[in-house]
């Protein structure tokens, strides 16, 4: 059997430089393949850990802002929660409007707490509708509305009708408001 060892040895002896270069080039081939796989694995692992690391560092850098936001939100929600209405406590709810009536010097001719819409599961709040009929001079009625808008209870004026009766100086104000309440 003819083996290539003899010719190779002869070639290496005749051209040691070329043979040495070719030997090293051939040796570098499997080394490059191995390193290619290693590099791919290391690159993927590095990209993942770097992404996580950068997210962590960004979060750490934003720590102050997050804490401040949390504090502000907590305070705001606390303020809301302290003044939430309760559908079951009608007297408390209506009492709030009588207090505003007194402050704005109008006459609360009629006030009714309406039935709230059913609460959706998971909702932290619900709206309790209240219907009001108020009479008084224009300025006082405006002050009444302003007091409701800026008062401690969160409410939304859903509908209103401001009208004057013929021959009467006072105005009539029909209001329907939604009070923010515990679910």
């Amino acid at each position, binding site marked *: 059997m003819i083996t290539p060892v003899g010719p190779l040895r002869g070639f290496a002896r005749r051209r040691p*430089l070329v043979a040495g*270069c070719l030997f090293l080039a051939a040796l570098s081939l499997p080394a490059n393949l191995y*390193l290619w796989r290693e590099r791919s694995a290391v*690159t993927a692992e590095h990209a993942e850990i770097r992404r996580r690391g950068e997210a962590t560092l960004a*979060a750490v850098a934003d720590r102050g802002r997050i804490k401040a936001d*949390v504090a502000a939100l907590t305070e705001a929600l606390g303020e809301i929660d302290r003044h939430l209405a309760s559908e079951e406590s009608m007297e408390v709810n209506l009492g709030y409007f009588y207090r505003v009536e007194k402050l704005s010097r109008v006459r609360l001719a009629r006030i009714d707490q309406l039935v709230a819409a059913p609460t959706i599961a998971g909702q932290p709040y619900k709206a309790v509708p209240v219907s009001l009929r108020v009479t008084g001079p224009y300025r006082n009625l405006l002050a009444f509305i302003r007091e409701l808008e800026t008062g401690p209870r969160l409410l939304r004026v859903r509908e209103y009708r401001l009208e004057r009766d013929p021959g009467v100086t006072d105005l009539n104000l029909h209001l329907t408001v939604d009070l923010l309440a515990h679910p």
Partner: protein
Amino acid sequence: MLSNPFQRHTRRSVVIEFNPHQVLVAGITRPRRGPVVVECAAEFPAMETGAIRDWLDRQSDFRRNWATAICGYVPRQSVVLRENVHAEDLTDPARLESFITEQQARRAGSSAPFREASAEDWLFRAVQANDGRALEAGQGLQPALIVGIARHEIRHVEQRVLDCRLVPGRIEPTLLPLFGSIYELMARRHQSQATVVVVVQDETTHVYILGKEGVHTPPGVPFGLTALVQQVRRDSGLDTDEAAVRELRQPSPDMRTRAPRLLRGLAGALRPAIDSYEMTTGQPVGPVHCAYLPPPLSWLAEPLAVAVGHEAFAVDCRDWMRSAGLEAAPGVTLLGANWLGALSLAAYLPENATLESEKGLGKGVSFQRSWHVDSRQPMEIPDAGPVRRSFVAAALAGAAMVLGLTFAAWQWQVCRTLGADAAYWREQLSEHRELFADLTRASAALDADAARLAAAHALMHAPFQPSDFLMSIGQSLPPRTRIDRIEANDGRVVLAGSLLEPAEEASRSLGLYLEALRRAPEFRGRFTSITATSLQRTRDDDALAFEITMRFPAPAP
């Protein structure tokens, strides 16, 4: 003392001599200290080349391709002249050419192969005729031994050396080192007589007389080995030249007896030159040395000396080697008298000396010895194809190696760098793990609180505050206009009132009022339309009752 392991202690070279009858090859090692050792030696026929390479390939220490060779040769076309010259004459090529031409013209009838010297075709080297040292400028007329060699012969020798895959480190006319060695032998023997050196070539025979005043160079004689063969053929009655040559190389006792008679013609041609020397110098001539005769013909030396009227010059190479800084390795059996010229090439190599071709490889110093001149020519490669192919192959192999190794090194470096970076990020993650968990919890709480706030906003937000709207309406009301009713819900706002003006003027005022409402910043953009939906005369008076509807945009689904 510790030796530097990176210092190469021994250099290996090849000594190769091309003489008229043989090619003599010896492998020598040159240790840093001590004599040069002849490791191996071989003799080849004069025109052999391939067998030399094969023989070198069989020598374990000398089979490396392109090893350095110290080359000597006896040119077929050459001139060796002794003349008194100024050293300056030899430095200017034009002066040297005219000088040599003039000297040759005086030697009418000599066997010198040229009549007109040309530096293009001939290479001239000169040493002092008495001691072989280089000529010194400014010393006036000096007896010089001028050696002229045809350049094409030098190129031929170089090509033969290259054919043996050797690099010529030096190429010397071997006659000069031979003269030096013979002078040294004469000195050791306290020989006062001159020595005659005879070089028998195929067609001519050259004679050189080595006396006290240096080397004398009588003209050569046109009687060489060919003429001797013809004489043997005639004398012995042989049919062919081959038979005559065989008779000469394997002499019978009868041939040895007849030898002085056979050599009488050659001796007769040489004797006038010897006699002339004795008469002109007054120095007696002693032994005769036949140089370069191969072992089969070496027996001719003694009959020739006897025929000339002198005795043969005895040469014991091994004895001479000891004083010449040479040593034969055990097992080297050759090294007869015919090796004197070849071994003279390597004699007295100073320690740490470097051949010309080795200069680029190390820090050695070149050497200059008496009786040694280098006659190498700029290399001319007749066919550059193999060299080009070899270069391209080496360049490609080198490029492949560099590419492969560079790519591997780059990948390794990338792996290393990414690994270090990943370790840094792992460390950062480990250090901030608790903090990050705390922040994650805070973010979750923030999201939950934001969701609650968003729910509250969804329930309570309004497009604008009714109080602001009522005040804006009051401020924008034109004169002689009265609002009786304002009604609002999630979809629209209705303003109802009356204009206390004549009908035509009232309708114009209502139009202007609508335009003013649409342009007012507090209403523009909040309503999709602001239109009058009713304009009627009232029953009680001439006022016009109107109704304006302002529509909110439809809520997003």
